[in-house]
């Protein structure tokens, strides 16, 4: 093998080594700090149907006559549901205030929300409140708890739509 060939093979070796080093390193390095070491996580999840916004009303005969024959239902019930209003306080400070709209083209579906919030680890007081009708003056669904969170611990606060209360998991 002459010098020129040796140089070529060496050049190839260097190129392959750099290629492997690049892939080997960047395929899992450097480590990414997703959550600061002194923090914990709260996952707040709600899946609930807001209340219907309008009242059902009786259609009079003139209204019924104006409707196609197949749609002459005596009661007119609006389908639109109220958005949910969701508030989370940590140690008295509001960290989340969210309006969750109902799904669907007619806004008649379930409202669904998921929020991940990082909080300092240690003892904290949580207060979560929710309204399911825009006309409600106060929050009918409320829960409060003092918890001690370890660093990186996940606390799930989930609203159980059947029992209509927040659960801390």
């Amino acid at each position, binding site marked *: 093998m002459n010098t020129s060939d040796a140089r070529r093979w060496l050049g190839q070796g260097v*190129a392959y080594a750099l290629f492997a080093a690049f892939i080997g390193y960047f395929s899992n390095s450097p480590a990414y700090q*997703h959550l600061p070491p002194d923090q914990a996580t709260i996952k707040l999840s709600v899946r609930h149907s807001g209340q219907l916004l309008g009242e059902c009303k009786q259609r009079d005969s003139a209204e019924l006559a104006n409707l196609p024959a197949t749609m002459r239902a005596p009661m007119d019930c609006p389908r639109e549901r109220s958005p949910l209003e969701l508030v989370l306080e940590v140690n008295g400070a509001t960290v989340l205030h969210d309006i969750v709209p109902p799904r669907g083209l007619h806004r008649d579906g*379930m409202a669904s929300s998921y929020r*991940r919030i990082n909080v300092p680890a240690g003892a904290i007081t949580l207060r979560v409140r929710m309204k399911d009708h825009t006309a409600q003056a106060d929050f009918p669904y409320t829960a409060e708890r003092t918890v001690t969170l*370890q660093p990186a611990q*996940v606390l799930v606060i989930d609203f159980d739509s059947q029992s209509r209360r927040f659960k801390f998991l």
Partner: protein
Amino acid sequence: MIRRLQDFMLGILQRTEAVFDSAFGERWNPWYQLGALSFHLFWIVVATGIYLFVFFDTSIVGAYASVHSLTEEQWYLGGVMRSLHRYCSDAMAITVTLHLLREFAKGRFRGAQTFSWVSGVPLLWLLFAAAIGGYWLVWDRFAQYIAQTTTEWMERLPVISDSLARTFLSDVTLSDRLFSLMVFMHIAIPLFLLVGMFIHVKRLKLARTDPARGLSIGVIATLVLLSLVKPARSMGPADLSTTVASVDLDWIYMNFYPLLDRVDPVYVWLLLAGVTALLVLIPWLSPQPRSAATAAAVVDPANCNGCSWCFQDCPYEAVTMITHEYKTGHRQAQVDPDLCTACGICAGSCPSATPFRHVEELVSGIEIPGFPVDRLRKEAMQKVATLSGDARVMVFGCDHALPIDQIESEGVAALSLPCAGMLPPSFVDYIARQEAVDGVLVSGCCTDDCFHRKGSQWTEERFASRRMPHLRTSAGHDKVRICWAGVSQRDKLETALAEFRASLRRHGIAARGDAESAGGGHEHQ
């Protein structure tokens, strides 16, 4: 703006390729076969993926355990397969990205190449989706991070009607069926990717999907070695009761994931959508307007004998064969102007493009209006007339390779064409027979990096009588030489030219009027 960026990138690219040329040679230079390398890596990922799938358990507990066991207990095969699966995917992301940047720098996104460019953009999304979905399957801490972050990101899309991220609230909310779905997705997305890759190269004649064997062996050996030295490992089983604080991110695929922690994920969607839209629109943002010089090839039915050589040679499938306009039972070529890049390779293949014809104006069966064969004959003869001294050489070059006017001197005349493949072999014979010419040298892009894909290769094959029209010359094949030289290979061309002229002198061919010492095949540098 786009053209300035292109020129800047092209400068860097040409210098880099020159360095790689010196180490790998033109045949093995990875820069000339990034697309083929991507195909090659894809097949390795598929093969290793099939092996991994045999051992994979599609359940919450089983997913991690099966991959972990494969990695640790069967490290010599399963572990290597897993590592290769990951590293080849990473390598594919790199080759695909470089392929995109290179094609952009070379301007191969306009005109006839718009289809390949645009059809390549969705493949980026599919490639990234396939890779990210694959990490998910391992169901380790890294998979947990990806699952949580990706679903939170996905649900910011208005079309997602329910909270996906709720699936990963806690271990209780997880279902085995999710892993079955993820496996299905991890098979379906690469299948879509494969179909997309097929469509991507559909309009390219004989698209190269296999890299040179030496390069292929080099890449596989490198990645196998990497798999043994630094095997891919899991990060520990997923545990939804704790957040993954620090993660060993795959920066090659997930370089934008940290953004999701810093800005509203909607902005990340907007950013990626914006980049995608920009990539798709580039051909229209920087179009190549048709000018007289780049007008599409035209067919002259009177001179087209329906041989179909142009149809076989067009690298962009712009030529089709149809029933002849007026000759019953004959066919003629037809050009789709939208697909034609005016490379002239069709004219180079046309048997009627012979300068020996005794006609006042030479018209070929197919030719490009920007550089018709009549002009080629006239300009070539004008150049021949300037030759003097001994060992006189007429050089034909290519506009996209080394500018050959740089090598003109006493005894050397040069004429650049849109592509070396545009030169009909009969022209070489014609020029070689001229009294004032001792030899003809044809230059152009390297065969693996021909700007018009096949011009250099077809020329070589025509000269070697492996492709029609053949080079037949009574002047002697010793008087003809090929030397492919890229833009940065002036030394190579000058050396080849000097050797050629020395050879012409040695053989006494340089003596005026002595054209008798021909024999053997043409020499290829």
